[in-house]
């Protein structure tokens, strides 16, 4: 696996598992889960500094930006203008041009507004951002995002936080077939096998938050996800056997006592 590194726009990623930092009990638990996941990429959200309680701890005190690639998101943005505003602030607050771009279109499903997403991708790519747009599992929009300058495309496996797994593996396969940029499944993973499925399909990486943070034991689940992603990647590279309806004996018939 050493020579199987994911490289996007010249940035080398050691891990094909990317993890979110939301929903943990505290920063201590966040740091332990990230460590157990073996990931070197963490997503973060952009929010107002708490000016009334200035002593409150900072996430980056627990996740050293020298050790982890900090990938800010535009979560919570429902318009192109808001997403651009958050992205530009994130770039100034952070250390890189990477942005996980979200333009949400619906509160209940948190499905993306793909029209807004496409516009924002185009604008931010022109401004020199390394854009990772979160989108549906739609091959047409995935291609359009790539053409608009996305550095990688991040289709959902299922709604954010739903844990429903990869709902449409066939669409993911079609997206993968056409893509010239990396495809990273973003959202929907519920347990380790879901992450493996995504990787077995040929996805370049998987981003997971709720499935780890919401597990009864987040640290163990983080470790499970680490192995699940490695297993899926190895299986994909190894090339699975075709599915068949009937049995094929794996022991020889020759030499039987007949």
């Amino acid at each position, binding site marked *: 696996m050493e020579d199987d590194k994911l490289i996007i726009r010249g940035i080398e990623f050691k891990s094909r598992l990317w*993890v*979110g*930092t*939301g*929903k*943990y009990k505290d*920063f201590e638990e*966040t740091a332990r889960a990230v460590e157990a996941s073996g990931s070197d990429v963490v*997503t*973060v*959200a*952009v*929010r*107002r*500094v708490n*000016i009334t309680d*200035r002593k409150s701890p*900072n*996430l*980056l005190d627990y996740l050293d930006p020298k050790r982890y690639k*900090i990938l*800010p*998101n535009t*979560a919570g943005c429902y318009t192109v203008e808001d997403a651009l*505003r958050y992205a*530009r*602030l*994130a*770039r*100034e*607050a*952070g250390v890189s041009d990477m942005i*996980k771009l*979200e333009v949400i279109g619906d509160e209940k499903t948190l499905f993306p507004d793909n029209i807004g997403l496409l516009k924002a991708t185009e604008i931010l790519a022109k401004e020199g951002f390394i854009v990772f747009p*979160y989108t549906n599992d739609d091959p047409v929009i995935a291609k359009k995002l790539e053409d608009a300058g996305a550095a990688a495309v991040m289709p959902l496996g299922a709604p*954010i*936080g739903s844990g429903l797994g990869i709902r449409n593996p066939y669409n993911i396969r079609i997206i993968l077939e056409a893509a010239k940029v990396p495809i990273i499944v*973003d*959202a929907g993973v519920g347990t380790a096998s879901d992450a493996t499925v995504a990787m077995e399909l040929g996805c370049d990486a998987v*981003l997971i*938050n*709720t499935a780890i*943070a919401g597990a009864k034991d987040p640290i163990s689940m983080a470790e499970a996800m680490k192995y699940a992603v490695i297993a899926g990647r190895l299986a994909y590279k190894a090339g699975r056997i075709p599915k068949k309806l009937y049995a094929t004996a794996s022991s020889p018939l020759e030499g039987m006592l007949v």
Partner: protein
Amino acid sequence: MTMKIKLNGQDYNTEKETLLELLSELGIMPERVAVELNLCVIRRADLAKQKIQDGDVVEIINFVGGGI
């Protein structure tokens, strides 16, 4: 002279002249945040020379736990 500004959505009075001084008054390290003045992102290097005026709208953001 005391200036009335809007800071992260709240009314705030300050006598500080620049954004960098304001951050220092708030006990915030500039390396960990980004500052927006009247909807424009201010580069970290410019915080020391960016003057605050009465009625300014200032937003100071940082990174918090978040996923997707």
